């Protein structure tokens, strides 16, 4: 069992967990992820490592409640435990000196971008951060990101906080202002990463994305997570999750993300009905903010 040391609600239906897993914390590096299972009937779900503390032996994950498992998870509190927690999985980000880099985090993608931005800045890079959310109340970790980046810009789709516009609008600005950007790292919902890649391709700006294809084992054993990159099949869990965004077949990814849509819907409805019966809980229907593509 892996104990939740700390829980923080970052935004409506966006939670932060700090989970005790000393062995994982010792090895964790930016860009990697964990797979967890809430209980013995549970699904294995991947979550990116948003931070790690080797001294405390803890891993921080930030997740958005989108379906049954993330809701069950979101209903847990400090002191509760999850049954299984395995990692660090995937290849870490390549942290080295590049020069000027833009790090783009959309929605909950801000969390996985954060340790990468921090490490890149520590490696001597100039890091321009861009964070975007649908609306003001969904913006989180602005301070942390500001500290991790050389410069930070914030935007909301509806303009309710900071600037109005999509992250791609801000990215266009940034690219136009400075002609020394050599790399873009973009993490967020699939449509956002796709849009960023379409934009940066025009400018010939190399872009790294972190792919969240559907996974089971996360060790290269099943092939559920396969994605096409540069015309070749790759397993996102072991070959990635980061890839050259300009090579990724996003159309394929978007369709593969929907494979279990009917089951996911059923599972969620069943869960909501049950939790309504038992606790009349306020969860029901509150979150239709599903940034993961429908």
């Amino acid at each position, binding site marked *: 069992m892996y104990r939740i040391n700390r829980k923080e609600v970052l935004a409506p239906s966006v939670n932060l967990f700090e989970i005790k897993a000393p062995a994982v914390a010792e090895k964790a590096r930016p860009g990697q992820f964990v797979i967890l299972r809430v209980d013995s009937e549970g*699904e*294995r779900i991947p979550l990116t490592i948003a931070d790690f503390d080797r001294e405390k032996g803890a891993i921080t994950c930030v997740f958005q409640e989108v379906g049954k498992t993330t809701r069950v998870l979101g209903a847990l509190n400090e002191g509760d435990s999850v049954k*299984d927690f395995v990692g*660090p999985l995937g290849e870490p980000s390549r942290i080295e000196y590049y020069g000027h880099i833009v790090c783009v985090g959309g929605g909950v993608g801000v969390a996985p971008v954060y340790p990468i931005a921090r490490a890149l800045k520590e490696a001597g890079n100039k890091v321009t951060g861009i964070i975007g959310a649908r609306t003001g109340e969904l913006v989180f970790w602005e301070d942390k990101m500001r500290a991790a980046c050389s410069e930070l810009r914030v935007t909301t789709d509806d303009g309710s906080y900071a600037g109005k516009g999509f992250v791609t609008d801000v990215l266009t600005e940034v690219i136009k202002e400075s002609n020394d950007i050599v790399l873009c790292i973009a993490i967020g919902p699939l449509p956002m990463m796709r849009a960023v890649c379409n934009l940066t391709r025009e400018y010939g700006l190399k872009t790294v994305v972190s792919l969240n294809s559907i996974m*089971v084992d996360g*060790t*290269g054993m099943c092939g559920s997570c396969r994605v096409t990159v540069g015309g070749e099949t790759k397993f996102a869990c072991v070959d990635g999750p980061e890839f050259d965004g300009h090579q990724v077949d996003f159309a394929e990814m978007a369709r593969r993300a929907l*494979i279990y849509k009917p089951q996911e819907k059923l*599972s969620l409805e069943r869960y909501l009905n049950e939790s309504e019966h038992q606790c009349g809980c306020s969860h029901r229907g509150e979150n239709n903010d599903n940034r993961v593509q429908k």
Partner: protein
Amino acid sequence: MDAVIEVKIMTTEYKNKKTLVPNKYDMPVQEPVQRIKNFQEVALGYDEETAAAEAARCLQCKQAPCCRGCPVEVDIPAFIKLAARKDFAGAIKKIKEKNALPAVCGRVCPQENQCEKFCTLGKKHNPVAIGRIERFCADRELHNGAVPQEVAAATGKKVAVVGSGPAGLTCAADLAKLGHKATVFEALHVAGGVLMYGIPEFRLPKAVVQEEVENLKKLGIDIRVNAVVGKLATVDELMEKDGFDAVFIGTGAGLPYFMKIPGENACGVYSANEFLTRTNLMKAYLFPGYDTPIRVGRKVAVLGGGNVAMDSARTALRLGAEESWIVYRRSRVELPARHEEIEHAEEEGVKFRFLTSPTRILYNDDYWVTGMECLRYELGEADDSGRRRPVPIKGSEFVIDVDTVVVAIGQGPNPLVPRTTNGLECSKKGNIIADPETGATSKPGVFAGGDVVSGAATVILAMGAGRKAANSIHAYLSGQTTTNS
């Protein structure tokens, strides 16, 4: 092909011990119509009387040719003799001297190619049903509580075992018996390897595997699940930092091969590993009670002809497919699966398309599979394996109407451990190179065995390799030999 016929033979009346009973006693099974609707075990197991009667068929041959066919050298006539006297506790003790997982082996070993192939009775009649008797003895023990096993005094030596499949578990069990502290590291959330994630519940109930694992734990083995070696500590770190005196690598052949044909990433195409893992390990057949989903359409094609393919085709039927096809490049006689599994698959209505191989998978606008284009093959010259090589017939393309495809054409070794271990020699295919007698690798103190060395093989061969490695690790730790000798 004896075993194929054997299943059909009617139950023979009990005979007096002295008279020769030509046929095996039938294995009671769940009827096909019933069993394709559930995931419960197909073969129900002998009862005590039948087990003893079957054991009484044994001639107790002096030469015991059966033992020659057993990769772990179980003293077959000895345990059968005890079973015939209904001393089942004695029988299981005898088996366990050599075989750490008898309830598993009794169910999944290809006995027709092993012990039973050499049985004297098999020359004219049916061989003794060695596997079924073994299973009965093992199940009885699981039911009545394990017979305690002796463990040598602690040596103070620590061995890390990477992977908890049959190779790793056997190696750990043998090391524990020899007094060494074995710690097993397993990437998944349960121990058992393919026994848990691959072989279906209806052939090998997961509770049986877990009971066997629990019995092994009683020997003092420490099993750490959720521990991916190479991502957490590497093999080098286990030895240098964590104080392990030796390491055994039994990481199996878990990397699924694909056909590399167009359309293979379409929705509805699964690797057998994914298909079986979702179903067995994650219990997708109990969805939504269990959270992991699986999607099976009306018509399923399974590519391949081994146990993995049979398991996938039979699983598809149980998940509700109307049609389940085995699409195999070669012909019927070359099917590498256990005979009993082929029989059971046929009884359940699995259909076969031999001498056929796909060229591309067709899909609709939503990227879902709508069909599979195939080529017909004919048999040509014999190849390296001695089997006639299938050659495609030009222009014979045709389309099979399917909506789900399961690729079961084989697995390779997972590269993670080899890639993260300094000085570990591997073959071109990525298998670890190890001495077949000792399991010693190119790296001192590191041993390997099972599918990661041999390529995808069998449970018993993996166990045999685990046992040999345990013995040579023991010798290595006792300073009798070095790994590089």
